[in-house]
């Protein structure tokens, strides 16, 4: 497996969607390639950074929006 091959398979590997055989081939490449190991770390950190950036409590739906929804329903918006 080349570094370019690894890049193309990385998303599936990180998401656990790669076959066992291909995952093993990828991991064998990682054992011998510093650049790819660092690339994988950066790739995973990016995914985690995305999840962390949105990990916050749900907002409260503003009261005026609640009322607008319920009024629309009463006016027949949901019929």
């Amino acid at each position, binding site marked *: 497996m080349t570094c370019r091959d690894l890049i193309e398979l990385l998303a*599936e590997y990180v998401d656990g969607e790669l076959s066992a055989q291909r995952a093993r081939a990828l991991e064998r490449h990682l054992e011998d390639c510093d650049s790819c190991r*660092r690339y994988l770390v950066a790739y995973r950190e990016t995914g985690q950074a*995305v*999840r962390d950036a949105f990990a916050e409590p749900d907002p409260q*739906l503003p009261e005026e929006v609640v009322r607008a929804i319920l009024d629309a*329903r009463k006016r027949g918006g*949901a019929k």
Partner: protein
Amino acid sequence: MYVEPMQLKTPMPIPSATRSRGSSGPGDEEALLEGLQAQDEACYELLVRRYGGRMLAVAQRLCRNDDEARDVVQEAFLSAFKGIHRFRRGARLGTWLHRITVNAALMRLRRASSHPEVQIDDLLLHLDRSSAHAGVGLAARPPSAERRLLRRETHRMVRASIDRLPATCRTVLLLREIEELSTSEVAEMLGVTPNAVKIRLHRARQALARVLSENA
């Protein structure tokens, strides 16, 4: 009936259809569903107050501004009200509403006028010795107050970076990473093949890694 605590200005009346029931959890949801299908107005209000915040969070993530997000939530609820008689028992209301909200947001995004977009090829992280070091750099451990500030600033920067992605890649990234939809679910929603979803996600992650490394 147990009603989830919420920050309400006035006490939430117990819906008439569910007043006599003492259940919680799935039973509580079943009672709420019965009330909705019986067109109990109090149940509609409970549905909006119970799930509205979560739906707004989903809409805010996918839409580009708050007004749009609020419109999406309103559209999603009205769509849910129309379709409540088709709701499949055994499924979870929250999951169903989540899906409706995502679909409403995607429809809104499709209708929106196109914005000039950075070409993703310009953002792609190329594998070379220098870029292999790219990533979000938070290796140091400053004091806790400074860490909190740094964390908030990092989150702001990550979100801004996501907004720089081409719309198709941004949407796939959010649906897979944040909304936690599967590849096949995203493919079905967007009307593309699963392979197209995988490619867009991969390119989005690569581009985002490069944008983040430029801002690190």
